[in-house]
């Protein structure tokens, strides 16, 4: 009998396209007993670059804490499992880490997209879930008490500083129109939507607003629309691949907005500069909560140790690594405060008090939203490296405005 080849092929196409998307509490062991901390990280797929940076940050913290005698006396071993940036795999991973590997503690994965399903599993087993990169509003909508987002501000506020800066410009320079494009991702879209609302309220007209699927690989038509809108400023809700693609497309079309900000991508240091070309980075902005030059708690040590362990320059360090390191710092301080590494005790401890990190001090509300009040700053590429330009309290240079034309 003849095989229905078209059906097999079409079926496989559908399955593969789907691939592309995406109890008991750990008891406190005796002091000096080695413990394992489990993390699901994206070592492949869309978030693989960020996943690798998380591993670097976590490993560095584990090395530091072990050098000081361990986490409350327990030598720490990190166990990583790859989730391939998949929302289903991340669930399986945490389930296995907790029930099969019986890890003492769990730390968070990369992105709100993966943190949301993972947090449900870890909460079910009453594990504390400090996490470095899941700060979208939907992360907190579940109302879980076991999750703690270790960044200075909730993600939706990431572009607030940027809008404040734009609206503070003298009326002659203030932009009149803005174009927006964002992934339909719980990390990027809330930031862009909030910025759009604030700018519209400030009198900046929306020339274009587009949301695109996170699985998009061809960004040319999207960029074309932004170019056609010919707005004064462009605000993009991106991860690194689309951040690079938009920059290239704008260059191709000789489109020079007065200001361009991307939610992720330009914060990836040398990696971003290599991909778009160092000369093309000039004037591009990104919201950032951490910089190698910040005078926050333990930041100098972190930066020096990072460069010693992984090489490169301080400017090459991904903010993801600093965020992961901060998770360890918070847990270290919470365990001392609770005098326990029992998950229940840690959850209770983390809901009160202030914790110092390389990103600055922070505390957490009842659903794990950060209450640092530090805010997120604006970084801008100037002369080949990203520097803080706003607010003036942390700025090392003045913002370049308008952004220079493409070379």
């Amino acid at each position: 009998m003849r095989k229905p080849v078209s059906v097999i092929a079409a079926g496989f196409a559908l399955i593969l396209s789907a691939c592309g998307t995406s109890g008991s509490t750990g008891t406190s062991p005796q002091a000096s007993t080695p413990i394992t901390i489990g993390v699901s990280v994206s070592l492949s797929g869309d978030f693989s670059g960020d996943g690798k940076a998380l591993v670097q940050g976590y490993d560095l913290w584990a090395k530091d804490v072990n050098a000081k005698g361990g986490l409350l006396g327990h030598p720490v071993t990190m166990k990583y499992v790859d989730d391939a940036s998949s929302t289903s795999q991340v669930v399986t991973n945490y389930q296995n880490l907790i029930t099969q590997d019986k890890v003492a503690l769990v730390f968070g994965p990369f992105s709100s997209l993966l943190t949301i399903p993972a947090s449900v599993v870890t909460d079910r087993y009453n594990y504390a879930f400090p996490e470095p990169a899941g700060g979208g509003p939907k992360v907190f909508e579940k109302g879980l008490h076991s999750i703690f987002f270790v960044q200075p501000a909730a993600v939706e506020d990431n572009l607030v500083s940027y809008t404040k800066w734009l609206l503070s410009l003298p009326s002659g320079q203030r932009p009149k129109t803005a174009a927006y494009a964002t992934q339909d991702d719980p990390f990027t879209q809330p930031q862009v939507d909030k910025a759009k609302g604030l700018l519209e309220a400030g009198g900046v007209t929306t020339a274009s607003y587009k949301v695109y699927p996170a699985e998009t690989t061809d960004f040319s038509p999207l960029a074309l629309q932004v170019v056609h809108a010919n707005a004064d400023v462009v605000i993009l809700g991106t991860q690194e691949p689309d951040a690079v693609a938009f920059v290239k497309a704008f260059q191709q079309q000789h489109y020079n907005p007065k200001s361009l900000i991307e939610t992720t991508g330009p914060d990836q240091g040398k990696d971003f500069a290599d991909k778009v070309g160092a000369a093309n980075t000039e004037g591009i902005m990104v919201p950032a909560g951490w910089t190698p030059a910040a005078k926050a708690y333990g930041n100098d040590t972190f930066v020096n140790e990072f460069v010693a362990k992984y090489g490169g320059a301080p400017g090459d360090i991904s903010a993801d690594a600093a965020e992961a390191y901060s998770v360890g710092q918070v847990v270290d301080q919470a365990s001392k405060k609770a005098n326990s590494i029992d998950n229940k005790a840690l959850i209770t401890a983390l809901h009160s008090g202030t914790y110092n990190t390389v990103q600055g001090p922070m505390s957490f509300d009842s659903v794990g939203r950060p209450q640092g009040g530090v805010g997120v700053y604006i970084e801008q590429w100037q002369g080949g490296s990203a520097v803080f330009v706003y607010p003036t309290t942390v700025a090392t240079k003045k913002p370049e405005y308008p952004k220079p034309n493409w070379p």
Partner: protein
Amino acid sequence: MSLVLEAAILGILTGGVYALMASGLTLIFGVMRIINVGHGALVILGAYLSFALFRSLHIDPFLTLVITMPAMFALGVVLQVVLIRPLKTDREALSVLVTYAMALGIEGVLGYVFTANYVELRGWYETASFAIFGFHITYVYVFGFLLCLAILGALFLVLYRTAFGGAVRATMLNRTAAQLIGVDVDRVSALAFGIGVATAAAGGVVFGITNAFNPGSHYDLISRLLTIIVLGGLGSLRGAILAALLMLVIEDITAVVISPVWASFAFFVILVGVLIVRPQGLYGVRVRERI
């Protein structure tokens, strides 16, 4: 120039790249009646080979094809002999499993060697452009499209102007009858697989200059390539080219006129519509077999 027209031009230019990638896939199906779900991984492998040469020897990505296409051709022949030829029964279904395993193997090796980080091929032509009625067309898309035309033209010449091409077409029409008239179908199959894989290398270069890629990029790619060859008609080169252009033009126009969210959906609506009217695809041949 209007946005729709610009999107259509962009769709045609990028469609050429997909046509090149899909041509190898449909050729392999036509000759061997196997579904090579590892074709996307071979495209990405080709892109990485060019990336390695570009990074270590600073060879222009397009020029790397002089090395990568023959290398990929040889790899294709070996893969066919080792993995595909032993499949004597139930080839269509088993080939899916075997080539999927091959794809995972390639992804694993690439991940080990190059890590999972996204990389891109770079050249002066990636951002340089020229203007037509105010619309800037980037050189890389034009060069990519010309490369596609050249390779597809060469493929047509081989298929329709050489004795080997005659043997390939005979095998595509009826494998058993071709054997009866003296065609060495094993040899034809191995060479056709090699040619298909070599075109994947060429497609990989253009894909790698216009898109950031990592070892896992093949999943999205193969799903698109399979839908292209299903729409074009399995085994039809002309169909693959037309379907690739249609897919990208429809997606790009939908993205700018309605929303990027509906871009792929719009293409699938048309795919289903065509398959209802012509189940064999645009250029497919309806085959009746006694059961």
